[in-house]
């Protein structure tokens, strides 16, 4: 197998607060290969965006990487200075955020924003940068790209703006794209346009994509592998079809059961009892054990299960087999 584009090893992100040290990301490890889409799912506060921000070096103070390593194409990038990081950000790692309006400068035409990025990272002449900007807009499917390059962000609709943001993220031809909830603010039909665009670009360029979302349907259709996060830890990591059809971690199973599904009609939705614990009040042992229907004594003991101490797929001492996991997609 080829070398992964991104390797994250035992990443721990800390936030020191008055009430003690919080760990929004706690011991997360994963790889993304060229041409692969890794979906990262979880509920709010699970640490999915924090993981993405740590990779691109966008953690807000006082959050910091406490330990672990991030490797891009084999080079370690988590300990770089800001000046060194600038060469990676935008050049080798592209980023797409949820809200396209806040990712674009409202006072500059989109063409200026694109050519600025291209000149900064590729060091080409102004005319060449302009041509590349038109080509980039063309590639993401903006009609009449030549005429629209002088338009301001407010002159585009939400879906078109998100295309501009994707063009901006891709114009320096990065090897990794981090897409943080890229379709959450968009309508269903526009969402379908954007996800199929991401899939096509990933395939054509052999780019690695980290797709952060809370929408299981989007993950099922788009991702190759999926990482399920709960309370800052990876709960399950595996090929998307296997994780969704036969989840091993009880949390993944509960998540699948609580998603309304076309095929299952009007039965009652499965409820996971309780709420996700706050970061300052994580229980000992497995963070999910107070809500887990299969809890045993070992789950309450310290330390909690990790992917590598268990079977590599689910961070659970007693992973479900097919017969137990009846609540998911049958």
């Amino acid at each position, binding site marked *: 197998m080829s070398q992964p584009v991104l390797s994250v090893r035992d990443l721990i992100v800390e936030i020191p607060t008055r009430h003690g040290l919080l760990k929004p990301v706690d011991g997360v490890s994963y790889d993304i290969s060229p041409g692969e889409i890794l979906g990262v799912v979880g509920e709010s506060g699970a640490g999915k965006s924090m993981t993405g921000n740590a990779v691109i070096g966008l953690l807000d103070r006082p959050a910091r990487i406490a330990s672990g390593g991030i490797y891009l194409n084999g080079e370690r990038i988590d300990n770089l200075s800001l000046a060194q990081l600038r060469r990676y950000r935008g050049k080798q790692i592209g980023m797409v955020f949820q809200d396209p309006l806040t990712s674009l400068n409202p006072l500059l035409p989109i063409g200026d924003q694109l050519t600025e990025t291209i000149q900064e990272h590729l060091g080409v002449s102004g005319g060449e940068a302009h041509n590349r900007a038109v080509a980039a807009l063309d590639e993401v499917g903006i009609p009449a790209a030549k005429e629209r390059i002088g338009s301001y962000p407010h002159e585009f609709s939400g879906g078109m703006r998100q295309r501009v943001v994707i063009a901006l993220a891709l114009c320096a031809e990065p090897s990794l794209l981090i897409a943080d909830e890229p379709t959450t603010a968009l*309508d269903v039909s526009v969402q*379908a346009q954007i996800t199929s665009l991401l899939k096509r670009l990933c395939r054509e360029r052999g780019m690695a994509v980290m797709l952060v979302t809370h929408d299981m*349907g989007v993950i099922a259709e788009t991702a190759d592998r999926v990482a399920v996060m709960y309370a800052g830890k990876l709960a399950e990591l595996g090929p998307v079809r296997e994780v969704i059809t036969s989840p091993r971690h009880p949390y993944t199973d509960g998540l*699948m059961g609580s998603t309304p599904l*076309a*095929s299952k009609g009007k039965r009652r939705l499965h409820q996971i009892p309780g709420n996700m614990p706050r970061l300052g009040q994580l229980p000992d042992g497995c963070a999910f054990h107070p809500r887990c229907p299969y809890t045993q004594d070992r789950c309450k003991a310290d330390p909690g299960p990790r992917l590598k101490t268990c079977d590599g797929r689910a961070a659970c001492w007693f992973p479900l087999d097919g017969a137990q996991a009846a609540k998911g997609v049958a």
Partner: protein
Amino acid sequence: MGIIVSVKNLTRVFDVSKPWLNRVIERLPKRKLTAVSDVSFEITENTVYALVGESGSGKSTIGKMIVGLLPPSDGTVEIEGVNLATETDAGVIERVRSDIQMIFQDPYASLNPRWKVGDIIEEPAVANGDATDGLAEKLLEQVGLSASDVRKFPHEFSGGQRQRICVARALASEPKLIVCDEPTSALDVSVQAQVLNLMSDLKDEFGLTYLFISHDLTVIQHMADRIGVLYLGRLVEEASPADLFETPQHPYTQMLLEAAPRMDGFGREVTPPEGEIPDPINPPTGCAFHPRCPLAIDRCATERPVLEQKEKARVACFRAGERAI
């Protein structure tokens, strides 16, 4: 079972013109945005009627006109046979109004942060002049919170718990109809499951009727007894969930269902729909969907199709039932 809500030829036009002086100086015409155009439907008692559509399709505007937050530009809304816009008997208006409640999308914006939860929940009953002894405690327990929460403030609760408080408040005046505008869109999946289950239970317990507004097809399919699909302020199709999802008749419904992500759609290659919703200020002539419709014929551009009974559904399309994909 009777009809609780009857909507006939409902239309709402917003004036989005520039100020008077600008219009004179710049010689601009008045600009009108038709948010809802000639929509008719009925809701049967103790059922869930769902309105689904993309942003700008007019679903929230219809909800607001039904509860009386906005007056209709044309057409009528009758609740229990009473048209609140024209009714003059104050006693009747008061009785009908107390039968309607609303739940909003954002549970962070719809609870007053300076009020205690108990006061928030009792407010509709106080406004009606009903007794409130122990009411908030009882309702909190019914929505799965604890009676001692009455003295807390909204910021002490999570998003899902806040939405439960909104549900409790809506129940305080013992309504018959609750209009829910995207009640679970701001919530996580597992919390959404809790709120949806709660809403189903309360419906059976109190014989409630819901008008359920959402853009999420899976939630709609789970909750609804009858679904109305809106496009650019027009009702294009109305059917039961089984019929709508099995055999969508209108090309827009077909497109919407095809585009929605599926949990079992591993590696599915979707042909994404062409184009976007047109500008509601200058809607296309004839059928509003014809510029994007793969089945469009000449007639679609000139004549607006009316909502007609076709098999088990009501559809507004000249080529209803045909499939492009």
